């Protein structure tokens, strides 16, 4: 019986149906999360939220302006550390890394990518906070910067490898030195791909909370000093979500909405750039 055609055909339809169901089931939380986020977030969003700092416990109102700016500050520090190192590593892997050592670096980058963010938080604490004797935006930036490196380097490498070899050879043929070829020809051709990589890594670390918990610590007031504890949007959401106050829950949703809008916008920009055709120079 198991080999009869109707049975095989039935099994075929069943499995195809199950695969389709799985897809629907996976999209369900996506829709549910986004739907609820927009519903609660927009309801709680107002001008004060974007321009005021948090009020003391018990008073309603106030906002997360300091956390939004603080997040920007931390991400800026992270980018200053992560972007050059990531792109440099990517260039090394794509242009010089065809030997054993290249594989070692690639493997290490993949391993680093898998290190839990909270462990990176401990390391940043150990490297910065312990010596400064102070929680600071700098420490958070170091943690997020470390997390950006493997993401950027691996995608930069991928993008650079997609640049046709003939372009490099054309430059060499004109007597352009290799460093100049890499900077002005290869990197420039792949630039939108690399911007994509940077944006993606940005989107990934922008929502990270765990490594900030004991590096930047959070702050209820304005702070622009990188050597002081600073508020960050994900941290603030985390703190507010765990509080017993309804008003703070409302603000947590508004903060989450802002965070997700930032992330989705950057991801969609990336998507647009990629679908426009990244490599117009080569074929």
């Amino acid at each position, binding site marked *: 019986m198991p080999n009869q055609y109707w049975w095989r055909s039935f099994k*075929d339809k069943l499995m195809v149906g199950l695969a389709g169901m799985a897809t629907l089931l996976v999209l369900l939380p996506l829709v549910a*999360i986004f739907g609820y986020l927009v519903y609660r977030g927009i309801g709680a969003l107002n001008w004060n939220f974007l321009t005021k700092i948090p009020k003391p416990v018990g008073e309603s109102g106030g906002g997360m302006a300091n956390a939004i700016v603080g997040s920007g500050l931390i991400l800026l520090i992270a980018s200053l550390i992560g972007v050059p190192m990531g792109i*440099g590593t990517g260039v090394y892997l794509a242009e010089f890394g065809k030997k054993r050592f290249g594989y070692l670096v690639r493997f290490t980058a993949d391993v680093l990518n898998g290190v839990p*963010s909270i462990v990176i938080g401990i390391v940043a604490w150990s490297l910065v906070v312990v010596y400064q004797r102070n929680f600071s935006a700098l420490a958070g930036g170091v943690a997020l910067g470390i997390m950006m490196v493997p993401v950027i380097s691996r995608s930069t490498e991928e993008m650079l490898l997609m640049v046709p070899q003939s372009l490099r050879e054309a430059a060499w043929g004109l007597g352009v030195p290799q460093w100049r070829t890499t900077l002005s020809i290869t990197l420039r051709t792949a630039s939108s791909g690399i911007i994509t990589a940077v944006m993606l890594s940005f989107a990934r670390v922008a929502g990270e909370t765990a490594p900030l918990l004991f590096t930047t610590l959070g702050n209820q007031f304005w702070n622009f000093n990188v050597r002081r504890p600073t508020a960050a949007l994900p941290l603030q959401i985390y703190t507010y979500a765990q509080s017993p106050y309804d008003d703070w829950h409302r603000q947590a949703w508004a903060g989450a909405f802002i965070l997700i809008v930032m992330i989705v916008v950057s991801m969609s920009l990336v998507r647009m750039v990629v679908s426009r055709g990244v490599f117009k120079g080569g074929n």
Partner: protein
Amino acid sequence: MNGSLLKARYQPDPAAASSPLAETTQVPRRKIHLKSSRLADAGFRYLMLGCALSVLAIVVLIVRELFLRSTLSLHAFGLKFLMTQSWDPVNGDFGALAFIYGTLVSSLLALILAVPLSIGVATFTTELCPRILRGPLSYMVELLAAIPSVIYGLWGVFVLVPILRQYVQPFLAKYFGWTGLFGGYQFGIGMLAAGIILAVMIIPIVTSITREVMSAVPTAQREGVLAIGATRWEMIRVGVLRNARTGIMGAIILGLGRALGETIAVTMLIGNRPEIAKSLFAPGYTLASVIANEFSEATEDLYLSALVEIGLVLFAITLLVNIVAQLMVWSITRGSARRAAV
């Protein structure tokens, strides 16, 4: 500026073109230029090498700092740390067993839920769905990966937990209570909630890697199986899944690595109680959550050191898991490149 430089190189020197003598007088100048550019090339190369080395340095630094800051606890407890489950900051007695248990159980639960779904989604998007849907579907699954952990936690606390408490847990207790896995108080928060949210969080990575390895299976394999009269499902099972199984296994283990290290969403949902309970409804605690909750409050040296050692344990587990997974994925997708290099 670059353009103008290139253009300048393009234009043949009229003097050089007309008389060979003029060209020879040019030679010394060009030689100097070549020398300096060779120097610049070497410099550039070393600069890039420096960046690459820094990746290695970061990993070495992680290991060093973790050992350095946990020395106290390593000496005080030794291997006992991994085998006792007392966590008593007041009396300075620390053991990580309850956290290791919570981490493993929540992650395995996540895998059990996520793996069939991920393989289903990957199969659907690579083999079955209309070409038009392929892009949007994979984009939506990717979007799931872009949602930050803290938002998963927020959603879990305010939406998932009430649903679990009101509908799912009574149902499970009623029909599957006999297994012993679904007994006790129904808080909503607990191991089950953490497992579900972890499953949603690892589905994107497992799906995308599974899709990658499935696409790496040559079309000829599919055609061959179809040609001997297989149905679509048989083609997928024999022609695709069987060929991609090492890679899929790698994807699953990589997902496990993600689940083990996930912090914030789990901390918000698992209940944070260092106990080993059979029931999935009971609250638990994971390695990552205990660090997240207690690190900034730990004042005594031994307490802090024990927390760093927990970080070390977590790092060791994820490192092992990731290396295994990476090797498995590489053996499929990069097998050819690697063989060429060796």
